[in-house]
């Protein structure tokens, strides 16, 4: 392979790689992707619930990986297995707890303002995808709870036709959805959600609009100052 040129050519490139890279860097330059500062109005405990949601998801996935390593029957007959199952269960409760508090906070801040509609939309979809992710977990437990939930919830699935291709009583299918397909969906959505927050910045307070009414017109996008950080904690 020839050595890469030290200075990239200025002429427009037909390379897909270059196009993707340039678009990515334009949307999220490094100092916006990983900022080291945040607006001074981000000063409330409500702001920790977004990162707490991500943290809970990390613990869910970590404990889930350990359960997956040893297979679905392990936790029933070993103390260590039951320990990690408990971590998994409580981290799910914590995940929904902090995610809903995060949601409440963002509603009362009307955090969709200033072109941030997609941040709200992706966040809402994450919640709605997390519900079946949890459901598939409950029916994969291989205990009485799984027997009961699957035989009851199947009626709801069947009533809307979903049961014909999403069979709650089919352990193999539910386990696959739970440990692979739905976690991928949740992680992908969370990634888009967080990248949108990084791109747009944390929504400014309400009264700010009055203060900046006399300021020079700015672009609709939250560009922020070029050399300092623009994003903030979620």
């Amino acid at each position: 392979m020839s050595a890469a040129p030290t200075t990239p050519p200025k002429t427009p490139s037909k390379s897909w790689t270059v196009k993707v890279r340039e678009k990515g860097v334009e949307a999220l330059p490094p100092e916006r992707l990983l900022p080291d500062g945040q607006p001074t109005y981000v000063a409330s405990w409500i702001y920790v619930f977004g990162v707490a949601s991500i943290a809970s998801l990390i613990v869910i996935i970590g404990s889930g990986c350990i359960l997956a390593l040893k297979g679905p029957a392990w936790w029933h007959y070993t103390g260590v297995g039951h320990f990690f199952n408990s971590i998994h269960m409580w981290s799910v409760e914590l995940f929904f707890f902090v995610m809903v508090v995060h949601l409440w906070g963002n509603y009362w801040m009307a955090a969709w303002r200033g072109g941030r509609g997609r941040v709200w939309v992706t966040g809402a979809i994450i919640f709605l995808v997390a519900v079946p992710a949890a459901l598939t977990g409950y029916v994969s437990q291989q205990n009485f709870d799984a027997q009961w939930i699957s035989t009851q919830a199947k009626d709801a699935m069947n009533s809307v036709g979903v049961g014909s291709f999403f069979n709650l009583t089919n352990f193999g299918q539910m386990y696959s959805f739970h440990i692979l397909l739905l976690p991928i969906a949740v992680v992908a959505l969370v990634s888009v959600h967080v990248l949108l927050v990084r791109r747009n910045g944390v929504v400014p307070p309400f009264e700010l609009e009055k203060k900046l009414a006399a300021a020079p017109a700015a672009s609709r996008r939250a560009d922020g100052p070029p050399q300092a950080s623009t994003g903030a904690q979620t």
Partner: protein
Amino acid sequence: MSWWRTEEDTQPWKGRYAPFDLVKELCIAVGVITLLAILLTVLLSSPDDKSSTIAQWSHELPADFATAAAKELDETSPTAEYGPPYNHSSGSVQHFLLLHPQRWLGVSHPINTADDYVIKPLETVPNDPALQSAVAEYKAAPEKQKKEWSEAYAKPLEEYSEAVEEKKTPPSTVSVDQSTGTVTVKASGAGPVPTMMASLQSLAQSGGLEGGLVTSSQFFQTDYTKPLLFMADGGLLAERAETQHLLGRQWGLMNETGSFPGQPWLWLYALWYQVEPMKTSPNADIQVLLIMGLLSLAFICIPFIPVINRIPRWIPVYKLIWKEHYRESPPAA
């Protein structure tokens, strides 16, 4: 600015920034959540109520098992009369106005309750000439004869179940030996069915029926649909569920076994099942899911729904969230 996109005059922040360590914050958050999860685990652990088995069911509730099995043969059980995706009946087929998705999606997991739950398992029992002869006689008979025999056997058992449920004296046509789990049904005109059912009960109590229902077409199996639907046609799962507050009328879909928290995020979904007309409707599931589907769509679209997207400005919770900001830089008059 279009009518559905409000607050588009929100300006980008041009004010001060403060140093902030994003990565450190994430690490601290993961640490805190991990510690919380460990603390809750050490204090409370997690539930693990053991599965019920068909063997247990046939031992603990022998009459209930016999009734369910008779109804499977008779094709009058909830599963036999369910409809899609299991068969072409219509007992549990739901619709809403012109929407019939359950019927549209068809039979994708076919179950013939007489064959799958009774005939085929009995055909696997070796070295029992009386049983094999009874099964052969049943299979060779015309449909009308099969129906008469199985109804003749099922009827006394249904009367027995009803009497027990209503706490009345059960009929003498059914006798149950709780210690051995044997059920004797005095049914005239039942043909070979009593012999078949007695053998099915023994097979169930030996544990042979669990495997028989799962490994039906290949060695490796992960689909428990058949044994689960069979058990759900009986009363054992529901009996356990009622003790654990898991029934629908107990808001059970929000609950967990024991005293553990369940799925509190399903509160609104559970609520609709408790209000009319859904509470007593045979189409409750599709009605509730349609309502929740609409509400979920509305939830996603909150930024674009007039009035809803203005409430945060009208009810100033934001003044508490941004109180420091307003204190440091009061708004222009």
